């Protein structure tokens, strides 16, 4: 399959350092769909951790770098809802009074969270699961309430061959990650996570899917500590088993 244009992957710090397989899965998947993928070099982070903790001048400096890296990209694909939200929602404001204001708005308009890129840009929804059995889905807060996206991941999971998608009770509730929140108030964060994982376990799914590396770090960390058999995977890893 050819002729689906070009896309630049913004891999994000968490996926780069801790979940490189997510980035590799996205590259393989997009190439199979006929997208020419590039990865602008010397990427770091979107700056969300700085922004959320109130370090806005510092976050703006990071935003300036990112916008410069991606200003010529046809599409920017981001594996995390929170980072995509940062670029789309906050970059234009942060860079209003800089020479990059226009570029920031342009990059924001061409940036897509991974599931949105597949469904809303490429219009591809048919995949085969890399993992058999029951899968369930957790809405990451920034994707759901920041980008108002609950449908694209579900569209992909609903039509997934070789797996059964089951709804997660309280799917729209926070997993307790919240960036620095997870270590500033670790006891509260862990108890929120415990509630989430109890809901996850009640589904009887063998695989928990999310579209945000932050949530995955939190939830897979909790599952591993409980020695649960369930795996937490990024949506891209689940879809990567397929030949559309």
């Amino acid at each position, binding site marked *: 399959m050819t002729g689906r244009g070009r896309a630049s992957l913004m891999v994000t710090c968490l996926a780069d350092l801790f979940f490189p397989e997510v980035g590799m899965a996205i590259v393989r998947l997009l190439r199979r769909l006929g997208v020419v993928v590039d990865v602008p070099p010397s990427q770091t982070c979107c700056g969300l951790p700085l922004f959320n903790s109130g370090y806005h001048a510092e976050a703006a400096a990071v935003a300036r770098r990112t916008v410069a890296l991606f200003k010529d990209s046809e599409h920017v694909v981001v594996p995390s809802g929170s980072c995509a939200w940062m670029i789309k929602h906050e970059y234009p404001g942060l860079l209003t009074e800089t020479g990059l204001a226009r570029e920031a708005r342009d990059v924001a308009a061409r940036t897509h969270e991974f599931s949105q890129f597949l469904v809303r840009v490429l219009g591809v929804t048919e995949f085969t699961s890399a993992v058999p059995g029951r899968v369930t889905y957790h809405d990451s807060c920034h994707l759901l309430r920041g980008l108002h996206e609950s449908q694209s991941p579900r569209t992909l999971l609903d039509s997934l061959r070789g797996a059964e998608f089951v709804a997660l009770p309280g799917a729209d509730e926070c997993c307790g990650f919240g960036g620095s929140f997870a270590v500033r108030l670790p*006891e509260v964060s862990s108890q929120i996570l415990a509630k989430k994982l109890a809901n996850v376990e009640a589904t009887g799914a063998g695989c928990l899917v999310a579209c945000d590396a932050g949530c995955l770090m939190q939830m897979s960390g909790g599952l591993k500590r409980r020695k649960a058999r369930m795996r937490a995977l990024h949506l891209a890893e689940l879809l990567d088993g397929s030949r559309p």
Partner: protein
Amino acid sequence: MSDGELAIPFRQRAGSALKDAFLQEALTIATTKFIDLRREAFEDFPEGEALRDRARAIKEATRQRLDHYLEALIANIERLGGHVHYAKTSEEARAIVVDIARRTGARMAVKSKSMATEEIHLNEALEHAGITPVETDLGEYIIQLAHERPSHIIAPAIHKTKGQVADLFGREFKRRVEADPEVLTKIARDELREKFLQADLGITGANFAVADTGTVVLVTNEGNGRMVTSLPRVHVAVMGVEKVVPSLTDLMVFLAILAKSATGQKLSVYTTLVRGPRRAEELEGPDEFHLVLLDNGRIAQLGGPLREALSCLRCGACLNVCPVYQQIGGHAYGYTYPGPIGILLTAMLEGPRSVRDLAHASSLCGACADACPVRIDIPRMLIALRREVDEKKIAPWVERVAFTLLARLLTRPALYRLAARSGRVLQRPFASEGTISRLPVFLNDWTRTRDLPAVAARTFQERWAAEQGRTQ
């Protein structure tokens, strides 16, 4: 909460709440119930979304001309024979109410539920002046007997199970009490009936005040609000200045969404409209009516970064859906107003120093903004508060240094790569099969309850660079 309790760090207060089994049980039951009721109420009400937008717009527009609407309100209440007082601070507000009580020879005051009077610590001031305040809302009555403070904006005793309330009543009235809500309510009702008849002074808050009619509006469920506003000789309402709405038409917009957001009711059981003191032809109502307009930092925020918080209707919906509130309840926050909106109001009333830690008591999940009937963007303002706390150097210096270093790392890719390599070396003693289960000292804050992924043997960008090298 007392200064002594506030001396305990927030993280520790929250930690104690997490370990309180009664609190956990009570919170789970109550917040789940409120969330379900609210959802059902709005599901049956398709025009709700548009009304929420309308309500938000009314609040914004009213704020822009607050002086105008307050002047109209004052003129109309005075025309009806009522008195209006303006209190710049809590202290002034307390003094005004105590003066009225003294001048009218009041010895007992019955109160309906009011967060504004909690905010100004009115009960202590009344007691100090020899006037007995009696809370008549069931939840408030319970916590007054228990010598506590409300832990929720609309359900002050939400932190107590019915068993705990039965024990409390048993001790108070020296009898065996069944843990049955109906029995408990009957006991409170019997106790309170006499107080309503004895009291010389009725004290209420106000959910709204209508500028062009001079009407003070109380939204209640137990009927006690009616007793408090009609039986005693004198009625004093204490209200934040931001609660004024232009007209009765505007009021209808708020009434249509307030109870649905709070308790999932279409309307509260009682909507009490008070217009000044009893008129000659009327059979009931007070001889004197006073409205105390409370500023206490609100006016200063009209043009400030927290101004949107002045749209708050005090429905409590943001508390119910907040994952942090759901776990720790209201008392751990330490101030009059708990939950996400409470952090903003605390900053407004007590200054940024008071929210150094509270500003971070949120995962920024956004459930609060979604639930808010007037769509207050609470997460955005929490971030603004964090920024203020950093910029005014209220945040601990260690944290400020750490974030400055992080900023360096994220703007210099060579440093970022070096950090990844260093991480791989440093994690060796702790990592096994790509997972870290234990870390030393403060880093343990993650790993005490969760595994941490190790820095990958090869980062994505290292793998990508290697692949590009091969294909070129």
